[in-house]
């Protein structure tokens, strides 16, 4: 009887440890990131966002595409990485490195 009790207690302890490890792992889930290139029209200042192409850099004036509003040339205004967490994640989890909920 005592042996069974010991087995049950061991099993319960192992289950609790596994559950705690799983919870810790879920907290360490990788936040998806995406690269963004901000293009600005040199004529009207209209801003367009897209994924950067190889060889792009800040200050590069692009031949193509042209500004969808006035047809002016677009210049690469900024290239950066931002969090691409799905909306559900933002609603139910605190953002990494942020105090906002």
């Amino acid at each position, binding site marked *: 009887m005592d042996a069974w009790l010991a087995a049950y207690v061991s099993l319960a302890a192992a289950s609790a440890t596994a559950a705690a490890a799983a919870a810790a792992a879920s907290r360490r889930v990788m936040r998806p990131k995406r690269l963004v290139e901000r293009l600005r029209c040199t004529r009207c200042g209209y801003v367009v966002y897209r994924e950067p192409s190889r060889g792009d*850099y*800040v200050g590069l004036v692009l031949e193509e595409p042209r500004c969808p509003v006035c047809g002016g040339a677009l210049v690469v205004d900024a290239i950066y990485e931002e969090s691409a967490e799905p909306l559900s994640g933002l609603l139910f989890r605190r953002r990494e490195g942020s105090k906002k909920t």
Partner: protein
Amino acid sequence: MPAALLGLAANATPASPVPGVSLSNELATWIIAISILVSTIISILAFFGVAQGIQLGIWKAQIESKLRILEGYVNEVREKARGMLREAGAREPDAVIARTIDYFVVEPVSIEPTDITKRLERVLRTEEEQIERVVRAALPPGVSEERLHNIVTVLGIANALNTLYKFLRHMLLLGIKTKNAMLVAQLWMMLPFYMRIAKAYRDATDTIEKGLPIGDAAGPLAAYRLAERLRTLTPSTEIVKDTVFSVHEYEGRRVYLVRARGPGSTVGRPGEAVERVIREVVKEPLAAIVTIDAALKFEGEDTGLVAEGSGVAMGDPGPEKIRIERLAVSLGVPLHAIAIKMGFEEAITTMKKEVVDGVEKAIETALRVIREAAQPGEAVVVVGVGNTIGVGLPGPRR
């Protein structure tokens, strides 16, 4: 015998082969006796360092597993450098890597401090020029300077990771060889920090290979934005190797912008450039020197936070920074510093949106500092300090 000694024979059952001692009691007695014996032996052995030996073995196994990860990083970056060289059409990329991966720099003599920064500058420039020469010699003619600089930076990272790996392996082997548990313990405790640095370097190669701006490019990006925003009088002109200056006008004040030439991976020579701009170009009374640079944040601080201070915001080993400091002292000019805060990993990997936002705030701060420090008719030198990868020069005013 042990049962009798422990006085457990009182409740003996008739089933026992030994009169007066039950089977279950005898087993328990033996278990207790053996446990006491084992714990006594372990306690005695502990005085002779066996426990420490076991602990050392555990630390050694954990350090070795991390070293295997680090070795993987070194191989990964080496492969990346080889790929970049091959893509650029280099002859014998392996020979270039073999020559640069173990390249070392000997610090100048410090017990005689006279001219130590000049000697350090000479040593660092020799390193820079030599690595560039080796890579350039292997590349076919016509390869752009930007591409060359990016390859040199990735080779520099491979060198740093290789040195770190060899150093950690050396410390581990030395600790085991001399049975110095404290040496291994120190290594084991510091390993998470080293691994953090190593991972950041490994991740940085992806960004550099693609030529994207890194966090450290915040300074040159701020200079780029300022150049765009202010009326340009003289467009960007190279004044010293890989470093440019441009002249602008802001509410009656002359603004001389200095930064590294992009979009290749280089920090330029900002100290020497500022010295030459002030001595050779600036004609108006100089009111201030403002440096804008990425700075390491404290844990808990927000990325992209902008802080204002005094001095030269520059992370170089000394030679460039001291040129500006000496010049400011000789001219009696105030030194203003603007820092854009970020973590170590953020400084060498792809620029975060928070840093881009921080650059915008830094520009507002810089303009305020210019207005406060200089009267109309006076001049201010603004330096965008940092690696300019992914940040080109602004075109004509749009």
